[in-house]
């Protein structure tokens, strides 16, 4: 008896599936659809406005000339070069480190190893630590501790390394982008078929030889994706370099690693908040933002394409 009542009251049953239900169904799906459309629309609105506002000023001359007239005119050449140097030094530091860590995690770590779990947890933590904390760490560790230590050891206490510069900014940024590289390389390493490794080992190769000749070549694309994503991230982040090396304005390009540098993101920040005449420099700000966006988005796009290729290959 009870069973039949159950069936009648079952909201899923066909008897109850009236027209109102169908409308409700479309409404629910529609709401989720609106959320997606809204997010994508916002994204394109941001892109559109920045392109629209920045397009006038955006030119080769803008990219290749120095700022003039107290940064109210001229281009962003030193900021662009500063950003390039930053990401290059950063990659040199972060890529080998990240690759080796990823190789450890996929090749050496046992599945239930506590150590590997701790490494993974640290990497994920590193990925969620606010970027400003990296800036503080760079200041407290690289500049105050390592830099000052180097000065007192080599320069007799003369201030040379114990102040903000490209090297410390790049190393700080390297720590920030490390998780990006590790995750990408790990993903690529996982797509290398187990059989390849086994075949190599069965032929008498040692583990290290297998990694060197089989695993590593297979992970090149992953390392590339990781590097590109890291560069894209590093080019856009400002908080970590606020007090580890970015400069407001420099008349010359940085000549050595112990110089300060200008940076695109930092340039946008100071131009829009600390400039003497924010209204007047508006086109420069939008154009600088546009350059920064083009840089980060195109790098990201390349990484996405390479990654999807890796995934397709894996299938």
């Amino acid at each position, binding site marked *: 008896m009870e069973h039949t009542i159950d069936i009648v009251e079952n909201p899923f049953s066909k008897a109850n599936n009236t027209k109102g239900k169908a409308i409700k169904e479309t409404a629910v799906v529609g709401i989720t659809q609106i959320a997606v459309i809204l997010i994508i629309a916002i994204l394109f609105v941001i892109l559109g406005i920045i392109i629209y506002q920045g397009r006038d000023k955006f030119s080769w001359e803008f990219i290749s000339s120095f700022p003039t007239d107290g940064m109210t005119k001229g281009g962003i050449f030193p900021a662009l070069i500063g950003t390039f140097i930053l990401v290059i030094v950063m990659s040199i530091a972060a890529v080998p480190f990240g690759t080796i860590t990823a190789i450890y995690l996929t090749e050496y770590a046992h599945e239930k190893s506590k150590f590997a779990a701790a490494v993974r947890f640290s990497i994920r933590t590193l990925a*969620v630590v606010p970027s400003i904390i990296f800036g503080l760490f760079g200041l407290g560790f690289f500049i105050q501790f390592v830099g000052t230590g180097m000065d007192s050891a080599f320069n007799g206490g003369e201030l040379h390394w114990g102040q903000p510069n490209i090297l410390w900014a790049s190393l700080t940024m390297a720590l920030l982008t490390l998780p990006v590289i590790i995750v990408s390389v790990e993903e690529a390493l996982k797509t290398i078929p187990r059989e390849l490794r086994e075949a190599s080992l069965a032929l008498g190769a040692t583990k290290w030889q297998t990694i060197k000749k089989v695993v590593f070549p297979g992970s090149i694309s992953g390392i590339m994706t990781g590097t590109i994503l890291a560069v894209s991230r590093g080019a856009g982040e400002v*908080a970590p370099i606020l007090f580890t090396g970015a400069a407001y304005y420099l008349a010359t390009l940085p000549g050595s690693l112990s110089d300060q540098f200008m940076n695109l993101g930092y340039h946008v920040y100071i131009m829009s908040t600390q400039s003497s005449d924010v209204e007047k420099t508006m086109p420069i700000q939008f154009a600088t933002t546009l350059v920064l966006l083009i840089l980060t988005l195109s790098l990201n796009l390349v990484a996405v394409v390479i990654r999807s290729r890796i995934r397709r290959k894996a299938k």
Partner: protein
Amino acid sequence: MNSPLPKKETFTKESLKKQFRLSEFLAEKIISSVAFLSIAIIFLIFIFVFKESLPLFSFGDKAKAKTEIQTTTGAEVETYGAETSTEESEPETYGAPAESLEPESYGTTTEDLNPVVEETTEPETYGTVTEDLNPDSASEEVVAIDDKVTGNKEGADKTWSTFFSTEWVPVSDNPRFGLIALLIGTLKVTIIAMLIAGPLAILAAVYTSCFASNRRKEIIKPIIEMLAAFPSVVIGFFAMMVLATFFQDVFGYDSRLNAFIGGVAMALAAIPIIYTISEDALSAVPKTYTEASLALGASKAQTAFSVILPAATPGIFAALLLGVGRVFGETMIALMATGNAALLSANPFESVRTFAATIGSEMAETVFGETHYSVLFFIGSLLFIFSFILNAVAEFYVKGKLIKKFQGK
């Protein structure tokens, strides 16, 4: 490199045994020690960020004494010395408290610490004379009037007691480090951002994983993830230049940059994180759940919202936690779009100052070793601990729950 294959040899047990190779051994050790570095970095970050805030906790630190000299001018140091000598010349009169006021510890106590000892003992012993005996009095002669008004506050306990006050005035003769004001500002922005980002991102994730066709999925996912590639300084700039003006025109409030604008901008930064993780969580729900629900006659929407979404709750919870972590520590957007005034009000359309923005904007102006400098690092350690805990909860609690759920325990 290639070891010669054992030719013409018979494979004995001995020859098949794993040989010790130095290069192998070294490679493994080097690789695992590099991996260890990432654990070390986490510890180093905490140690070095916290280390710089240590002067706030230490009582007899020499660095502190130095700071004192730095902050007081030359002339004041002289009077300071003179006063200490008068005190020393009259040790009988002051009895026990003189011990705690030894010249060495003097400089230290002035700055911040010993709140309990000084505040409770001194007024009793000296009554009205307190002002002269203040460790700070030398430098405070200028500020004296100010201090009388605020009720003879001891310089010693200032930093700590002001942590719980509501005013953030780090650079003044009478600095106040009211973390409460910053905390409320940060919470306000975080709540606004999460109220916008949470529902939007989760609904979008539901659409992508439950309703969208495969082809659409492949277009939508990369586009939304592209939002994550937007540097936060770009989002901040956009919010400051475009959104702020737009919303002011719509709502007509007074301060152009405020908590609401900051919250909207931070929502843009948090959406891709929440979206990606909840989408993963929703897709990880076993297909059997969906099939069972559909087979029972439930519609797609019913399946999505009463079967898949509840099953993925822990994962979505994790996504929201990480979203909060992102917003809480976001610096550039807060710096550019929130107005940066530490006001204490519940009105979302007033300027706020967040923790991260405070560090970002004030660190450059502080002097190494100053109280202000230490306080900023202290805020940094708080932020670090907070994001660490958020991540740990998201990782262990949520993962444990998910595994239990899907294994049907």
